């Protein structure tokens, strides 16, 4: 009996251990999005329309400041918290679109120079306990990205609540303004932005591989890379094109078509549309829906000289023609000439993109350096330290093969 009582005592004690970490769901502040802007902002970034709004903003600014142990505030960190009670009470029909900005969310901004201390300072402004496990996106302003990513990343890597698959975007302009958007088909702009990427199989102009893990792997390996670009209006968000990074600093933007080319070359093309004019010089357009694209980069070494041979194999379906009576012309000869036209177009956008990245940014976003490290390690060992000066002059040859599989009905 005594033994059983003792065992029961320990069993009850063991059950109590769970209580230490008990947290009521309504007391958690689920951070969905996080924006990082530079402080002080550029003069045009925070313009207000009227004197009343300006004074309200000034009042709020006082709360955003915190006492710092050392230095001056350098960053403005904004988090987006969902107001779950409000989301439930207003869920009549589609959310967003006409609702006032922030009605379902609370965006808290804090100024400071350490993200961890800014995070803890926010605890003095909300009764909720901030929780990052469900963080969807981190938006970084162009200004911050140009100063370097290494300075700001540690908090996001060290904190166990952060996930390596959190999406990272670079905003053209103020990062906080993306969180302020009230999308038409989603409750929260952060979730909306993260979910846009699920369309990457339909549109290769967005950067799908734009997460914390991808970023940190590139930084550790010393590769140049691309992160997704994001722009917004009051109720719309668009992510298309990319921010080009040389080492950890942003050096410029890649256009939508350049993103297609980069995806082709890096074997990351998940699907999209390619449009060409008709082969016979008529004023028509033909669209190919690309269903599969594979690439292979082979380095060619001659002494100390290196060049690359890129093979791209594309499969797609004839999906549309404009201003062209395609059904009358669809024969083997026409398709052959069309195939050549698509091949020429892919080759052109790829070579143009390589040239611009070489000449304008000197950024090896195609990871040719990685190909050398893995395929020609002896060359890399000998010449790797000079890669920054070799890359802008590297010659690239390209073979593109397009197969048109389906023709519609």
């Amino acid at each position, binding site marked *: 009996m005594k033994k059983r009582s003792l065992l029961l005592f320990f069993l009850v004690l*063991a059950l109590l251990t769970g209580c230490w*970490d008990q947290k009521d769901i309504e007391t958690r502040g689920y951070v969905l999005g996080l924006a990082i802007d530079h402080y002080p902002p550029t003069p045009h970034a925070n313009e207000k329309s009227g004197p009343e709004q300006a004074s309200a903003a000034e009042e709020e600014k006082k709360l955003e400041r915190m006492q710092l142990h050392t230095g001056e505030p350098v960053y403005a960190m904004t988090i987006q918290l969902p107001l779950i009670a409000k989301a439930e009470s207003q869920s009549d029909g589609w959310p967003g679109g006409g609702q006032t900005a922030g009605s379902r969310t609370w965006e808290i901004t804090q100024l400071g120079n350490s993200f961890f201390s800014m995070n803890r300072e926010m605890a003095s402004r909300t009764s909720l306990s901030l929780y990052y496990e469900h963080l969807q996106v981190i938006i970084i302003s162009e200004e911050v990205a140009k100063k370097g990513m290494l300075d700001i990343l540690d908090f996001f890597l060290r904190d*166990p609540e952060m996930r390596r*698959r959190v999406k990272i975007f670079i905003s053209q302009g103020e990062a906080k303004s993306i969180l302020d958007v009230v999308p038409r088909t989603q409750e929260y702009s952060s979730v909306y932005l993260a979910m846009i990427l*699920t369309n990457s199989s339909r549109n290769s102009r967005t950067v799908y591989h734009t997460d914390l893990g991808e970023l*940190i*792997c590139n930084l550790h390996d010393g590769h140049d890379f691309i992160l997704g670009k994001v722009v917004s209006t009051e109720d719309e968000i668009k992510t298309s094109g990319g921010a080009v990074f040389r080492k950890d600093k942003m050096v410029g933007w890649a256009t939508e078509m350049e993103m297609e080319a980069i995806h082709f070359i890096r074997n990351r093309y998940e699907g999209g549309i390619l449009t060409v004019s008709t082969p016979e010089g008529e004023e028509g357009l033909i669209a190919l829906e690309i269903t599969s694209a594979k690439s292979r980069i082979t380095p060619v070494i001659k002494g100390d000289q290196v060049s690359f041979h890129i093979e791209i194999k594309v499969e797609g379906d004839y999906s549309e023609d404009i201003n062209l009576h395609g059904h009358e012309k669809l024969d083997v000869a026409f398709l052959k000439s069309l195939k050549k036209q698509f091949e020429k177009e892919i080759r052109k956008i790829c070579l143009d993109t390589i040239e611009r990245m070489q000449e304008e940014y000197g950024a090896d976003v195609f990871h040719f350096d990685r190909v050398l490290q893995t395929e020609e*390690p002896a060359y890399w060992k000998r010449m790797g330290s000079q890669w920054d000066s070799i890359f802008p002059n590297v010659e690239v040859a390209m073979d593109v093969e397009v197969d048109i599989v389906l023709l519609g009905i």
Partner: protein
Amino acid sequence: MKTEQLSAPQIMTLTVSAIFGVDVLVVQRELVTIARQDAWISLALGGILIILMGIVCYYLACLYPNMDFPQIILHVCGKFFGRLLLLPALVYDLLYTGLSLRIFAQALKMFLLSITPMVPIILFMALAAAYAVYKGIYTIGGIVDIIFPICAVTALSIIVLPLRQTIFSNLKPILFENTGNVIKGILPGFHQFTGFGIITFLFCYTRRTKGILKWYLAGLGIPIFLYVALTMVTIMVFGPSDVQSLIYPTLTLAKSIEFPGTFLERVESFVAVLWIGIVFVSVVLFLFKSTRNITVFLGLDTKYQSFVIWTQIPLLLGIALFIKNALEVIEFFSRMKYMDVILGLFVIPFVTAVALLKKRKETNQ
């Protein structure tokens, strides 16, 4: 001949459970630091060495089928010299159990129970393990029978689920001017499979059927395969530079698993929960070894064994909490496991050689 008996398949499950343990969280880190993208080759070579040493352990156990390792060592090497050889094994098993509890608690605190203090996590795990040991090897075998499929599924899921994120070229170049480092990584690779000698503690509880060696080798082969695959997948997902910066590469790997849409957003919660079972059986088996070592070392009668089990609890708590810094614990844990290399590569072959000579002498007489 002990009264309790284990079946041949249980030898496999017990061997796998002894080898698996807290190491599964950190197995890649040390090896990638040494051999970078070729770390998996070092681990595979360490695994081959483990199989060879495992066979030596098996033959040592066969020479004295009614005794376990501490009894054999004292019988073969004499009371004084035997105790001298048993002491490092005794210290190693205690340290391994204590530090396993600590690494388990700190990883659990980091990823699951952030507010719960470490002391109760360690204490209750140790108490539960001690109770299992107190109930005897047959009960331990039963627990392992339940937990083994969970271990296997967990390990397999950690390997298979991140495959979408792997980049094969991260494993390249293979062996390019790196052979020296790969060789340097063999011993650290060897000690990742600590616990392989469990057969010397279990054989005396078996029915001595012919299939035992086969099941034991399967028990060695499963963790070798899973650890090598886990290391390869981790390198393919993160790249060798990134792996070196991760304190718990396996948990970070689980956190990196992504499915299209928002399906299964937090796979690591399942992994962490199942992993508790893996660590638990490993701690149970090492506590069992350590209990037997202490009992025989002190020359105590088996009836006092339960007293030995419970008195180890404060000792384990002390070992677990002795070092404050999380990274220092992991580094000390890795360094401490070189004791197992010495035990596995020198002490056990030495004892086996002496045992063979002794047996031959006895036969001649």
